[in-house]
């Protein structure tokens, strides 16, 4: 038992170091990658547009649950009219960025890891290197940028649909006054609430895309290795997202 501990720790440190170095290389290559907007736009489409359905559906249901639970809770204190505020703040600051990041890791992150891992396994990345094309610039950087740009957009859509879901339940089903719902929301939600959610989703975008691209790029070039890398992407992205969420929430409050 004691024999496995140092190796686990050193493996963790090694991984963190390799990811950090990879991030540094990635950021350097982002500038030339931006010079080819077509590659980045393709990746925004892959990571963003293709995740839209799952994000919108989840946003709707999360908003509806928020409407039900929020109404039940607020009714106990006789302040049902605050439902709009509660739903909007909960979605914007917390639920939208976090759930979007978790769904992104499962939907787009795994796709990124397995795609890049398979490119590694079939020598495509090596072939690029031999053709004097840096695969970090051509493959990794556009995918990373695509994820970073897509995440805040997806979180924003999640918020809007979620708020619509909460309104649907609160106003249509539970009978909260529509005017009160929206005016309360408008008066209590400030720009800093929106920016808190935005900053979170950008940070989650960087973390999840980095993990997905790094795992794929360094996957063992076998079927088992790519499968393992894909699993690690989901696990690592989820844990890192929740950890970062706590740190940032503590910082913002």
């Amino acid at each position, binding site marked *: 038992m004691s024999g496995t501990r140092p190796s686990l720790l050193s493996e963790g440190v090694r991984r963190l170091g390799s990811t950090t170095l990879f991030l540094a290389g990635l950021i350097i290559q982002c500038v030339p990658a931006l010079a080819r907007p077509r590659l980045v736009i393709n990746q925004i489409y892959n990571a963003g547009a293709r995740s839209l359905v799952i994000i919108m559906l989840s946003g709707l249901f999360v908003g509806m649950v928020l409407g039900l639970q929020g109404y039940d809770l607020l009714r106990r204190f006789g302040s049902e009219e605050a439902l709009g505020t509660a739903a909007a703040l909960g979605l914007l600051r917390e639920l939208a960025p976090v759930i979007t990041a978790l769904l992104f890791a499962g939907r787009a992150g795994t796709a990124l890891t397995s795609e890049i891992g398979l*490119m590694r396994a*079939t*020598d*495509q990345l*090596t*072939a*690029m*290197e*031999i*053709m*004097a*094309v*840096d695969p970090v610039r*051509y493959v990794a950087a556009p995918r990373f940028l695509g994820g970073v740009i897509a995440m805040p957009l997806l979180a924003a859509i999640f918020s809007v649909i979620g708020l619509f879901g909460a309104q649907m339940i609160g106003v249509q089903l539970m009978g909260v006054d529509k005017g009160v719902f929206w005016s309360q929301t408008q008066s209590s939600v400030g720009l800093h609430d929106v920016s808190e959610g935005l900053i979170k989703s950008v940070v989650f975008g960087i973390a999840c895309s980095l993990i997905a691209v790094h795992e794929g790029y360094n996957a063992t070039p076998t079927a088992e290795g790519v499968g393992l890398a894909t699993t690690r992407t989901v696990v690592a992205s989820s844990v890192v997202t929740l950890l970062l969420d706590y740190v940032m929430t503590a910082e913002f409050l």
Partner: protein
Amino acid sequence: MVDVRDVHYAVPGGREIFSGLDVKVRRGRITAIMGPSGAGKTTLLRLITAQISAARGQVLVFGRDLASLAHAEIYQLRKRMGMLFQNGALLTDMDVFENVAFPVREHTDLPEALVRLLVLTKLQAVGLRGAFALSPGELSGGMARRVALARAIVMDPEVLIYDEPFVGLDPISLGVILRLIKQMNRVLGITSIIVSHDVRELASVADDSYLLSGGRIAATGTPAELRASDSPAVRQFMTGSAEGPVPFHYPAPDYATQLFAADES
């Protein structure tokens, strides 16, 4: 052109692959690197293309020591090389045309009409101009290798490296690849390095050959000279015999001891 001098290399796990390897590839010739599986043929290619670096000794490509070159200089050097991978290594998210056009688009700013001309002439050279719109998934193994060959020569490299070009091909595809390798060398004057263990095919194209064994060069010369060698190791490899200095069995404990030990447990 390529000069490997007294190279030592061990894999990160510790097993030594090369202990004092010397290989010289001369301009305009087809050089064959032969050897049994696991002799380090692919490792040698990775050394020559600067994917890995030697622990000791020098690898000179175009007269320049790879160990002394910066990342950017290695990329500059690689623009003068082409490499054909065993499985083709075509980019799966592009069609055949775009695959061949890829290095041109990455390294030059040529107008689209010129790119088209370049790509189509190279595809014509490998006989696959008609397949330009197919995706890599629709190609047979032999076709994929020919598309990869077109991609490897589209930038007119000075050195072309073939990694096991004959593996898994039907006799017709094999004949086509052999003819193309000769053609690339004779018509375009491309220096070629072929890594393979297919002795018969190599003998028909190679000008020089090296036989790798036990981390160093076991024999060198023209294919005919190798066949006439009296060294038992060389003879065993050239004739494909199971009996000889290279054992059939992986090192193992005594047969009977191991069998009965399993019984007792």
